[in-house]
């Protein structure tokens, strides 16, 4: 008994050691990075020596060799990630050297699968960690120091450093700082939320984090194995993700009054913020085609590149193929898209003062937009890449987005003027989970107001109208109405392919395809499309939050 306990402790210590291994690399002090790197070098070499003869004798069977040295392989995969993604140049270089040295010793080293952080965006368009301005560098370094990695999401968001900073700060606070929920709960809730949208990328990421903060491996077998308290959250997760307008105060009451498994209000707010954060982040992940992290499953391979196993991702990524920008015919076809859009914006701006639509007209326009959004069919089902069996993290996989406005069930329209984030939601969140309200507020404002006054190649454009149309269109899909908005504008500004993309990404993100991504706004920059994605993500998060917070408010009164 006592002995097993000690052994267990020893294992834990070892585990901690192996986790702490990477910590030093996040330091801003170059010497401590070097020191950490040296330690890792020694350890890798030790392990290589230990398994040396085996790999030498059976060089051609990776399946056999992978078992005994899986630990080493993990480290090597991590090194590979560092060599590509670490914001510190010295670490990148040393990682490359080390990998090279290991390879020279006859050990198989991994190579990254796919190209770059996104399947949709060519790698060369995305910021390279080696070539960023001082500000982005600093943000990247912060992110790296906090998490020991720079994930693909951050890389893609790196197009918009202002936003990225706010996003990372919020996420860091939600996951790591003082809060009512314990750390492993937070990650598990993140897993639950991401799994709802079958987002294997986020699930993988947080499974690792979950285990790292001491989460119970058993829970990962499915929600049934998790504590009762978390199981109860499943229902809220499901409704929030797909049909938040159905949320009532009874749902809240059930969570808060469940005897020993009940949630406290503060915990619930924390959970709700996490759920909505990860639902919308899943949207972003699919919307931008984020590829698996290099050091996670599916992010690297130990197989040598061969023609027969040409990676699907390479093709999907557009690398090696003619880019559509280079296609002159294609370009001509869509030429003028931007100009048309700008012309319409201008017209709307001007004619607003002359011609005033009647009130009934305005009301019907909202209804029309709502019903039309229903008709926007979310395109053909394409195969998504299956990886970890994610469905076990949630129940009732058949439950999905149903259109807000269908005949038969009539849900009253949510009026923002009666319950808005600024006036009501903020106060409630900040009351129960101090500081988070402030951070979310900043993040929403950042996303809503972010502009570079450019559209494709045009400069000095006021895009506020377009941004507002996107934002309100998403809220419209969730049945949230702004009294002071003319929903006719949406029809003018957002074309059909764009609407399809928005609808897919917001309502069933796992169905987003590269074709959808490419078929809207063909002349726009990738950074602008990422910007759109940020808008979609934040608007969705706010919509879900509004419904959840309204239900909580109703419960409280």
């Amino acid at each position, binding site marked *: 008994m006592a002995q097993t306990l000690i052994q267990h402790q020893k294992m834990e210590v070892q585990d901690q050691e192996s986790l702490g291994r990477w910590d030093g690399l996040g330091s*801003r002090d170059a010497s401590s990075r070097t020191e950490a790197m040296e330690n890792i070098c020694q350890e890798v070499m030790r392990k290589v020596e230990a398994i040396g003869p085996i790999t030498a004798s059976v060089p051609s069977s990776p399946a056999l060799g992978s078992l005994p040295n899986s630990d080493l392989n993990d480290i090597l995969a991590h090194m590979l990630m560092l060599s590509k993604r670490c914001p510190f140049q010295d670490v990148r270089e040393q990682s490359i050297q080390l990998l090279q040295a290991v390879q020279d010793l006859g050990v198989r080293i991994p190579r990254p699968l796919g190209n770059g952080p996104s399947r949709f965006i060519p790698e060369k368009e995305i910021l390279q960690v080696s070539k960023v301005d001082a500000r982005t560098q600093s943000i990247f370094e912060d992110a790296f120091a906090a998490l020991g990695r720079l994930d693909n999401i951050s890389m893609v968001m790196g197009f918009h450093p202002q936003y990225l900073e706010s996003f990372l700060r919020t996420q860091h606070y939600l996951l790591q700082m003082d809060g009512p929920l314990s750390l492993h709960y937070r990650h598990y809730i993140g897993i639950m939320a991401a799994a709802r949208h079958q987002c294997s990328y986020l699930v993988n990421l947080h499974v690792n984090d979950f285990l790292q903060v001491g989460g119970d491996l058993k829970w990962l077998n499915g929600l049934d194995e998790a504590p009762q308290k978390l199981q109860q959250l499943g229902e809220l997760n499901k409704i929030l993700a797909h049909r938040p307008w159905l949320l009532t105060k009874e749902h809240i009451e059930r969570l808060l009054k469940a005897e020993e498994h009940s949630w406290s209000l503060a915990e619930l707010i924390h959970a709700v913020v996490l759920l909505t954060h990860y639902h919308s982040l899943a949207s972003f992940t699919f919307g931008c085609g984020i590829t698996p992290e290099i050091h996670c499953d599916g992010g690297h391979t130990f197989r040598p590149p061969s023609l027969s196993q040409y990676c699907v991702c390479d093709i999907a990524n557009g690398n090696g193929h003619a880019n559509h920008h280079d296609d002159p015919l294609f370009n001509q076809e869509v030429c003028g898209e931007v100009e048309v859009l700008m012309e319409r914006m201008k017209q709307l701006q001007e004619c607003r003062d002359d011609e005033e639509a*009647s*009130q009934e007209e305005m009301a019907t326009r909202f209804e029309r937009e709502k019903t039309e959004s229903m008709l926007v069919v979310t395109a053909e089902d394409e195969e998504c890449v299956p990886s970890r069996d994610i469905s076990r993290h949630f129940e009732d996989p058949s439950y999905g987005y149903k259109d807000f406005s269908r005949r038969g069930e009539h849900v009253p329209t949510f009026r923002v003027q*009666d319950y808005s984030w600024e*006036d009501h939601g903020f*106060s409630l969140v900040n009351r129960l989970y101090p500081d988070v309200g402030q951070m979310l*507020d900043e993040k929403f404002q950042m996303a809503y107001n972010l502009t570079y006054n450019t559209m494709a190649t045009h400069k000095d454009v006021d895009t506020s109208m377009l941004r507002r149309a996107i934002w309100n269109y998403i809220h419209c899909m969730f049945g949230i109405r702004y009294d*002071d908005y003319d929903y006719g504008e949406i029809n003018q500004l957002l074309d059909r392919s764009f609407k399809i993309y928005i609808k897919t990404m917001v309502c069933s993100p796992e169905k987003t395809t590269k074709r959808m991504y490419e078929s809207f706004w063909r002349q726009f920059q990738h950074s602008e499309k990422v910007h759109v994605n940020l808008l979609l993500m934040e608007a969705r998060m706010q919509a879900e939050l509004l419904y959840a917070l309204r239900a909580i408010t109703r419960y409280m009164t």
Partner: protein
Amino acid sequence: MEKMSRVTTALGSNAISGRTMFCHLDAPANAISVCRDAMQVVVAGRNIFKIYALEEEQFVEKLNLRVGRKPSLNFSCADVMWHQMEESLLATAATNGAVVTWNLGKPSRNKQDQLFTEHKRTVNKVCFHPTEVYMLLSGSQDGFMKCFDLRKKESVSTFSGQSESVRDVQFSMKDYFTFAASFENGNVQLWDIRRPDRYERMFTAHTGPVFCCDWHPDDRGWLATGGRDKMVKVWDMTTNRAKEIYCVQTIASVARVKWRPERKFHLATCSMMVDHNIYVWDIRRPFIPFATFEEHKDVTTGIVWRHQHDPHFLLSGSKDSTLYQHMFKDATRPVDKANPEGLCFGLFGDLAFAAKESLISSDANRKPYPGGDRRYPIFFFKKPDPTEQFAHVSSALSVFETDLDSNRMDWFVKTAQLYLLSGKPFAELCDHNAKVARELKRPQVSTTWTMLRIMFSDPANLTAPGPNPILSKLGTLPLMNSFSMKEIGSGIGTESRLERSKGESRQDNIHLESGNLHLTNNNEENEETEGSEGQAEYMFGDAELDDDDLYSMEHDNQTEEQEYILPQEAFQLRHEIMDNPSAPEHLQQDKADSPHVSGNEAEVTCLTPIESFSLISISQPLFSPHLPASFFCPIVREMLSYYAEQGDVQMAVSVLIVLGDRIRKEIDDLTQEHWYMSYIDLLQRFELWNVSNEVIKLSTCSAITCLNQASTTLHINCSNCKRPMSNKGWICDRCHQCASVCAVCHHVVKGLFVWCQGCSHGGHLEHIMNWLKSSTHCPAGCGHLCEYT
């Protein structure tokens, strides 16, 4: 209608009468406004727009302005205002961005007069000019304020808030041309109506949106603002820079604020979320509302004083679809419920007590405190202010000091500092601690340590054959006998003590009761002792009994005894603070015990038990070779509980740590956690941070060790550029300098680093200490007057 509006003007405040009453609306209200004659009120909301007459006993619906089969969004009101000059004129702000005026004099059913659709977003506020009939001001979400002349079809001037949403606009009551506007970003702007090009002045009033503002009806310079940051602030605008003169912290974001008529310092507030009450504050008393109206079941959305010169009627509309008239005399006065008494303990047993003066002087029992204590009566007097309607409460503060000799906690501090809890072999730790205790004249504790060493460290025994319990029982038998003899004697002791306390003329009932209680408790304890098997029980019982003996021996020392009375009381309460982990019955026993047995007292005086203890420890080796250490666990457990119950958690925790695995499993985790928490709490009160940290570190309860993991972030400034350091490590990312250089020796500090929070300079702890001995200025030469505390 016409008639109603004509009656008006000269109605004095005394003409209004009524009672607290309410009526149900069909829909939630967003805003209300009152006619100048104070006889009608208009209620506006998303689905309601009605005028009610205020009659003596009830509200009577007068007019429904929401006409038409399918009302447009123009009827969906965010705000409404009744003109204060022209009784037939109303204005509403619609959620779709329209500003609508209504003329009640129109003969048709639809009273809509003018429609302005110049705003692009929701209009949050409309405001008529107080004296000018045709001037209307609006503030909108789109960041513009517009001034309308009602004789014209469109606005006459537009004021731009630089795309910051406008939440409230208010014309100044006294300055004809001035209006104030509050914004979503926390700013307040003052505008001159004649100059639409730029604001006259601007200041940041709140963090987050400023939802409302209100000019003081009489004092022209005062502006009250309320914000999402839960504050109400009163600004003096007469000075060059707007000066915050009063600030009231409420419990929820402030949605509306309205000055109370005829009361210079009163204002009413209601909140936007969570809190449904209406508060009336005296701004000079910001901590407790002057009056509260608690009728609404959902958030209050509109408040208005019924008549501009009558402070007794308040009208309110709410999301719960009711309209209320509140009478001021029916308001709840929270101040009446406030507890004017306060009691607090000092670290060293001092007791401060504040109570209403009247209470103290009338209490005869309090007077005859023994001479050993001093009283510091301190009276707080505030100059009575006739305008302030708060009930005046003057309280007397008394401070009681403990007798320095009897109850000082020095032993606690010394023990905490000197004890060794880890880092040496078990036996040495025990010996060391025993020595510490002995030097502090705590022989019982000292002996306990010695015994622990003997019980648990005897390597020679490990190889010895299994124990023979019968034999060992036999071995203890004689000892038991000797103890039971003593017990009888002590029983007498207690009784005699009781008699003594009875005989004391000044003993009040409480003391007598506690004496009684003690007796019964003691008996209980004795019974328990008899029932259980271990001899440890006897040891402890013995110690206690001996105390009693000593008390009886002290009979001749009556004067000293008297001096104990207050400190003992103090001690008794301290036990409660320490939150003993024991069950309720223990607590009771504790209370009863403490008046006469405060642990250290007993230890100082008990001489006899030492001998008996040493007797045991001598006799121990006789049978201990046959006993494994675990045999003693129940005994040690009892002992630890005993110490904890006595209030000496220090001992309990120290033993727990030193014994470590030997005893840990014997005591349930919750109790351990409780002991640890109490001890850490005590240590921190004595500012023994290092010790407390060590204890946390050495504890094995997960709940305790995690205390060290929380809130470990330290925010620092770079000493070079004075900007916050956002990164890990000590290199500032802005000026790329090492921030941890000692200002005295200019070397990089590794280890203890102390720095000034004022100027961010610092260095080696010793260097800075030495420097500041001779100089008050910062060693870096920045001119800052650093302080080292």
